[in-house]
């Protein structure tokens, strides 16, 4: 049962990593370290005066901000540990005999997903918080969690003996609900990574409108090109208002329809 225990631990850790990631992002620490995987070239945030001086010299446009850098690095440490746990799970899955029903595809699929997540984490920094990358990174984190949960349920003995009946329509409905949730999470991430969360200060109307003026094309331009620093958003406040108008409309519609 070591596999299931590590699986459960990984689920807990994934939740922590997700929340840490949100914390890094929402406290504007996403560019706390201008490089990856080190921080100003080091494994640990520079804190001795000579380290900080060397770091500032190597990265003249990004002066060391220890607070931000630490948040970023703690997130990376926890995420790396999660990656390690997933690798251990995958290796464990190889050792099982034909008699046990340990999944193999899932653990190795998870390895691929978590490696991709690491890369997305890198691109978050190197592509300067490009909304599409940060959104993908959030979705990747959720996907990792979802796969870990699915793996646990497939493997754990309690879930395996689920001898109950279910109406046919339930499967489709459950699948649809998960899909809708995925779309909703994407919309939420897109709002946040484009710094549009405050564009509608009121609720449920948006700046007084039930349906504010929207600009779908601009709001959903996925790729603005490189290199642009996206910190604090590149759209002006009017565009952002329309932007969120669109998002909030979509979500209000989903809530009140």
């Amino acid at each position: 049962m070591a596999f299931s225990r590590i699986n459960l631990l990984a689920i807990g850790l994934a939740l922590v990593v997700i929340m840490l990631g949100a914390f890094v992002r929402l406290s504007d620490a996403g560019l706390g370290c201008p490089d990856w995987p080190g921080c100003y070239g080091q494994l640990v945030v520079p804190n001795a005066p000579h380290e900080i001086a060397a770091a500032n010299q190597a990265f003249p446009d990004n002066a060391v901000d220890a607070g931000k850098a630490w948040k970023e690095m703690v997130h990376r440490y926890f995420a790396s540990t999660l990656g390690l746990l997933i690798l251990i799970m995958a290796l464990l899955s190889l050792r099982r005999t034909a008699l046990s029903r340990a999944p193999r595809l899932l653990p190795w699929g998870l390895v691929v997903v978590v490696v991709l997540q690491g890369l997305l984490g890198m691109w978050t920094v190197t592509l300067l918080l490009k909304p599409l990358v940060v959104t993908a990174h959030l979705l990747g984190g959720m996907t990792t969690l979802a796969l870990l949960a699915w793996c646990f349920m497939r493997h754990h003995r309690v879930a395996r003996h689920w001898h109950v009946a279910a109406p046919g329509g339930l499967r489709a409905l459950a699948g649809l609900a998960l899909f809708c949730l995925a779309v909703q999470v994407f919309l939420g991430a897109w709002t946040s990574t484009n710094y549009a969360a405050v564009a509608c200060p009121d609720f449920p109307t948006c700046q007084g409108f039930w349906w504010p003026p929207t600009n779908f094309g601009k709001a959903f331009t996925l790729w603005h090109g490189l290199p642009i620093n996206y910190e604090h958003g590149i759209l002006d406040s009017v565009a952002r208002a329309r932007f969120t108008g669109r998002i909030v409309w979509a979500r209000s519609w989903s809530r009140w329809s």
Partner: protein
Amino acid sequence: MVALVMTALFVVLWRHGGTDERWRYMSLMLLGAVVLQVTLGISVVVFGVPLPVAVAHNGGAALLILVLILVNHASWSAQQV
């Protein structure tokens, strides 16, 4: 759309709780998670994106995903009536 689907799912799970109470537990988990997330979401907007609420909203999303994975796994591995 999301609300509609979630409500439908809740109703079906609740009613199916007649045959096996585990479905009913799942419907309650779903309800709890959705209510929590909606409350957090509204709070984020109304209170101007306070940091802890926004982080919690992210966590709430993760929780919702866990619940839906649970419901899906149960639905798909159950025997079809």
